[in-house]
């Protein structure tokens, strides 16, 4: 399952969808909004996307993963809109028969998202006062 969404990301729902009887392990990466970047305080981040292309790129990444590893399920979800510090911006996850392929597939998914999926962030300083 891949998606670009403006709704908060629900990790419980993602995990529920990931497991099957053949899944021996699920590896999940959760990216969150950090309060600093390059030495500057960050209060919120606005993410924007070229949504149709982003979802096509995500589907491509999922296909690449399925060719390379024997995964049962792959999830790539990125949130867009204004997110505050601590909120979840991205989740990649893979369920596989064994942990090695789950870890590798999950890592591959997030690295490819950061390299090629057309999503952009704009950081805003915290409101003072």
């Amino acid at each position, binding site marked *: 399952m891949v998606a670009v969404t403006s709704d908060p990301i629900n990790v419980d729902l993602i995990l529920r969808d990931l497991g099957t009887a053949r899944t021996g392990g699920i590896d999940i990466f959760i*990216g969150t909004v950090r309060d600093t970047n390059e030495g500057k305080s960050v209060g919120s981040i606005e*993410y924007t996307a*070229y949504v*149709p292309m982003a979802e096509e790129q995500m589907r491509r990444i999922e296909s690449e993963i399925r060719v390379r590893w024997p995964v049962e399920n792959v999830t790539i979800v990125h949130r867009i809109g204004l997110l505050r510090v601590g909120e979840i911006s*991205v989740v990649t996850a893979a369920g596989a028969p064994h942990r090695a392929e789950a870890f590798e597939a999950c890592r591959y998914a997030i690295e490819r*998202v950061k390299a090629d999926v*057309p999503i*952009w962030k704009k950081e805003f300083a915290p409101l003072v006062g």
Partner: protein
Amino acid sequence: MRNVTALFFGPVRELVGAGSMTLAVDPPFTGDAAFEALAARFPALRPWRGSLRLAVNREYVPFERVLDAGDEISFLPPVSGG
């Protein structure tokens, strides 16, 4: 001349001040020619050229790609999702 629809995102959208526009591309109708048409109107884009990627109909392609009339194109700034 071929008309294409150009979409703008991230810092490029802020620079152009619009989400999309129709671009009239001159021969040889390549991505480079489309960038030239855009940069003629927005010279501040020129320094970005080296860091932009071209998407045509939602696929990354080289700037040498020849465009068809009606293509959806975008000059994508470096992505920063995650």
